[in-house]
């Protein structure tokens, strides 16, 4: 290692930490809004037992999103409601949802992608539809959206209906693995078909680990596929830009917080 590079390695992390603390102080908690939602009631209270899995998944996401630089607030039980999600949807730049998801009937035979709110209710929990979110978003894409649910990585079951990724401004397309621009700073992760909690926990744990340390979000997806130990029956998928770093200040120009 050259002396120059050695100096960089020695001084880099403390300097970067200092910059990070100063920048947080300057921009405050509202700079890059993130929201994480956990349906605790459906998976734990209503079942009459607690597995702890949804707590762990939500906590992993909050921890990683914070490390990436999003001011992430999390909600569960009575705080995770349809109205809460929609009130924050317009400003969210990072979103994590752990809940039941499906292509629900919204006036048969039309199906629309959505997820259940928690709300503390064991049955008939209202559904947050992709159409609801789309109505509250501008055309600007969210940076990171992870729908830790069944079915929300699928194409629309009813032709012409908007999907959950599209509701957050992320089209169902994937950039090349070498295109450094891609579709801009956007990445969507969810599942096709049934997703099983144990597999989701392992896959997302691995994804967040790599995303928060050394990899682009697309690489983190591929690394999680290879290393997470999830069973084959759970099928994650992604849309967006493979080489997007995940950092919220990526949407330059101007990139005022970049060196």
């Amino acid at each position, binding site marked *: 290692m050259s002396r120059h590079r050695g100096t960089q390695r020695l001084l880099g992390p403390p300097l970067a930490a200092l910059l990070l603390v100063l920048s947080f102080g300057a921009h405050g908690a509202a700079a890059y809004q993130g929201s994480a939602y956990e349906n605790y009631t459906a998976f734990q209270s209503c079942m009459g037992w607690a597995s702890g899995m949804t*707590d762990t998944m939500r906590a992993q996401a909050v921890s990683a999103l*914070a490390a990436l630089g999003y001011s992430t607030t999390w909600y569960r039980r009575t705080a995770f409601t349809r109205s809460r999600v929609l009130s924050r949807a317009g400003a969210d730049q990072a979103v994590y949802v752990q809940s039941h998801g499906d292509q629900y009937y919204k006036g048969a035979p039309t199906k629309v992608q959505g997820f259940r709110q928690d709300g503390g209710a064991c049955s008939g929990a209202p559904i947050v539809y992709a159409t609801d979110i789309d109505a509250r978003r501008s055309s600007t894409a969210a940076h990171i959206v992870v729908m830790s649910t069944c079915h929300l990585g699928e194409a629309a079951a009813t032709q012409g209906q908007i999907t959950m990724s599209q509701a957050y401004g992320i089209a169902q397309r994937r950039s090349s693995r070498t295109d450094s621009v891609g579709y801009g700073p956007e990445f969507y992760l969810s599942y096709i078909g049934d997703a099983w909690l144990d597999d989701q926990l392992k896959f997302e744990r691995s994804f967040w680990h790599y995303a928060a340390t050394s990899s682009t979000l697309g690489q983190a997806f591929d690394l999680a596929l290879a290393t997470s130990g999830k069973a084959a029956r759970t099928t994650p998928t992604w849309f967006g830009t493979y080489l997007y770093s995940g950092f919220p200040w990526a949407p330059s120009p101007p990139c005022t917080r970049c060196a």
Partner: protein
Amino acid sequence: MRALPFPARRWARALARPAAALAVAGVVGAAGVAAAAGPPGPALPAGAELPRSVALAAGPAAALRQRASTLARAVGLQGTATAAREVVDPLLKRTVHEIDLTEGGRRTGLLVQDAQSGRTLAIADLAWDPDDDAPRTDRRSAPAAAARLAKAAGLGPPDTAPTVAWDDAADAWTVSWPRIVDGVPVPSDTLTVRLRPGGTLASLSAPQSPLAAAPQRTISSQTALRVAHDFAAGHALDRLSGFQVEDLGLAWSEVNGFAGGTVAFEPTLRLCRVIRISYLPADAADPERIELHVDAGTGQIVGGDQTS
């Protein structure tokens, strides 16, 4: 909008580690950045911290790099092994060695080995080349190509027919061999080789969990179903619309704390009867499913899973 140019991304990457370190130290939390403004509850359950890296001594790290370079060449990966570290996962109770491959300053791949045995657990290629997408492999030829790569990695695939599927998200053919021990499946330990359309390795996954001793006598299907019925009735699941219970048979299954109050993974699998409970919620097009891992020796529920 444009993504960051490379130098800026390097800076962004440089910020990630200190950010994570600060979050762990509580500094970020104090600044309100990781504010958990939801209802009361732990931000991160004890033991659920993300995996952490531990530096290795120079000698063992060099030995790992040397082995990894040889392995990388054997499976056709670009780059040389430049960094090796130990990664400890406190939740899954796993310790592995990770070795980075790099070329020209960029990471081209990752190899993961079991920290104790040195067995290859995963390989991922991160250096995509346009020629990788030339359609030289198809559903018919993929198994043989995948088997060759598995053997090159020191992992003889089972002498059984694999399943083959195209995976859009991985941009790869996925060839999978289930692990079966004495006729009983081990669902968590599938050997999977992902191939680019051109036939090169995209990634390889080869988890191999230790197995507990099989019980001398196993409970019957009827006994396991009764355990599941009692459990369902005790939690009022049997009153849900479309309630059904079925025995999926014996499997080497995970102990994960499901229904036990907290996530508690054990690395060793147990022989269980897997009982599936399903029901259909209002408005839903698909049923929701719960699986219980009923220990085939004791009849106790030791784990489980649920669809979301």
